[in-house]
């Protein structure tokens, strides 16, 4: 039964030329204020943490007497600087659907290396800082290689390297801190980020400025370069990204190395903040950075989130801690409040996202 090839289509498709050429469009809600607001929130999810921040500042301004002063507000900024910088690194990793439990270890180890090179070995601070940043990036690179080449889940990789880096830290430092006086004498520039500018009662440390600058830089990279699009695509759906021709391994390794570099930088900022370098320190920064990222609205499943949100998230936690303590709330209850804050912030975020869909 020979048939005519290249026919114009099955006979039942003849009517198609007359078919409706427009895409299906469904009835839309009226453009009520509610609707417009939802649209704005959907397009700018960072507004949610921003509003939470403003709201909590106002609340504490009412509850805690001294809270609404330039001094206290700049204090909050100062206290969240290190967490904020690390949260930026953590955001990068979480955007790729990973998680980094080793950020704190990388930060403290880089900082220790910087200090010992400059103070104990008398290497010029510039080189000491460069080397420590490089070592930070190297540790991140190791994480990245384990995640991509050995193909282990990021949680496992960084759980393992957390122990490994901490062990190296304790061994390398001999559990000895480097005293602030020695640093000030030998290499004062290691404490650079601890200095500050004053505008009336408002005090802005160089560390705070560095946080803002870094946030802008990474925001630019994520939103205005091809690399940033690739990072989002990988977090969104790694298989799709691979099939789209993105070099997954190379991009992922670069993300981990960059995160390591930022953690190394955080080590420098931390030295300025604390005024000395100690092998124990910032013990809660892993969880604090994850908390900041999560409160900032970045999804732990990857692909969705923002750097600005994470910085705001870190500030929200800072406002709560300082605010509660100024309000004279007990330590336990601060911890209690922090736990509830995480739950409420994320629940609110999820709810708003569902509502604005």
């Amino acid at each position, binding site marked *: 039964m020979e048939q005519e090839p290249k026919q114009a289509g099955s006979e039942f498709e003849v009517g198609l030329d007359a078919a409706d050429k427009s895409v299906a469009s469904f009835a839309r809600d009226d453009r009520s204020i509610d609707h417009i607001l939802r649209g704005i929130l959907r397009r700018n999810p960072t507004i949610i943490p921003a509003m939470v921040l403003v709201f909590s500042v106002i609340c504490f301004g009412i509850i805690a007497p001294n809270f609404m002063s330039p001094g206290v507000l700049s204090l909050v900024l100062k206290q969240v600087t290190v967490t904020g910088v690390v949260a930026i690194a953590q955001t990068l990793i979480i955007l790729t659907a990973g998680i980094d439990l080793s950020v704190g270890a990388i930060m403290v180890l880089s900082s220790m290396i910087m200090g010992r090179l400059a103070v104990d070995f008398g290497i010029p601070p510039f080189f000491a800082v460069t080397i420590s940043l490089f070592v930070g990036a190297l540790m991140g690179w190791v994480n990245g290689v384990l995640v991509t080449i050995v193909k282990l889940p990021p949680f496992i990789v960084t759980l393992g390297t957390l122990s490994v880096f901490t062990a190296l830290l304790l061994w390398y430092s001999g*559990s000895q801190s480097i005293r*602030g006086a020695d640093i000030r004498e030998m290499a004062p520039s290691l404490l650079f980020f601890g200095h500050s500018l004053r505008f009336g009662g408002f005090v802005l440390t160089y560390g705070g400025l560095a946080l803002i600058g870094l946030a802008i830089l990474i925001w630019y990279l994520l939103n205005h370069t091809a690399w940033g699009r690739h990072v989002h695509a990988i977090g969104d759906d790694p298989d799709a990204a691979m099939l789209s021709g993105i070099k997954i391994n190379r991009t992922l390794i670069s993300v981990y190395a960059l995160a390591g570099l930022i953690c190394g930088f955080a080590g420098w900022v931390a030295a300025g903040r604390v005024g000395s370098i100690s*092998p124990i320190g910032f013990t809660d920064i892993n969880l604090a950075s994850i908390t900041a990222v999560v409160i900032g609205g970045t999804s732990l499943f990857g692909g969705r989130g923002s750097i600005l949100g994470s910085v705001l998230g870190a500030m929200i936690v800072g406002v709560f801690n300082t605010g509660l*303590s100024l309000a004279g709330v007990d330590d336990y209850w601060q911890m209690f409040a922090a736990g509830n804050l995480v739950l409420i912030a994320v629940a609110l975020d999820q709810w708003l996202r569902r509502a604005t869909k």
Partner: protein
Amino acid sequence: GDLTCLITKNNTNPFFVKMKEGAEAAATAAGMDFQAYAGVTDGDAAPQINAIENCVAAGAKGILITPSNDSVGPALIDARTAGVLVIALDTPLADKNAQDMTFATDNFEAGLLIGQWAAATLGADAANAKIGMLDINKDNISVDVARDTGFLVGFGIDVPNLNVMGSETDPRVIGHETSYASVEGGVTAMENLLAREPDINVVYTINEPAAEGAYQALQNAGKTGVLVVSVDGGCPGIASVKDGVIGATSQQYPLLMASKGVEAIAKFAADGTKPSASDGLTFFNTGVNLVTDAPVDGVPSIDSDRGTELCWG
């Protein structure tokens, strides 16, 4: 009234919790407001720096602090510059300018007393004792180092470096294990030491919970007659001395430190006078007593009944 701040190392060690209760009671009695803060981990300065800054922001008249680390020095100097009286409790700061006064027990002295007691109790056997050391961890936290080396020196062991733990080479010391100053850590640490050397007969412990754990492990292993010594002198610890769980403990007085500290701040707030050091010392010594029911010659001690009267919680 005026605000007093207390900043401790953590929220979990009963020593600091009692210190907080004592300070709060004293502050209330003196008609002052009181705010307590704690760090997270012993040795981590960052949360304490935040706490110092928050205290200054809250307008405190004085800060009582058990510093985790000398890194809090600059923040304390800033606080002093802002007109706040700073009193270090329990642990002095290396930087003399960082504090107006220290109210403390000499931790080295506390270690020394139990070391001397253990050596004297063993008598001639001290020459071939087998000693297990249960420290907090390997981080060389200052209190940990002072008690550990104090004990060894008191026992008559040569310690070349008094600033770190484990510098001695004497074969009588079997090993230093990490106990995290907790009962659970004490059990595991003691078990590991016993696995290495079943004939250990002297156990130094960083504090009484660790001693309790060590005793538990010894009992499980069926060991009796092992000398367990400790430092702190909390009421549960003294009860353990009474029960024979702990041979001797050096009792400290955190409540005294706290209440003296609060008094000093109250005085400073009232008329600006600053506290002064004890005679012949650079700090205000709140004292230490060896508590044991088996006193030995040459080492002054009090018995557990007296210890119970003085204990802090």
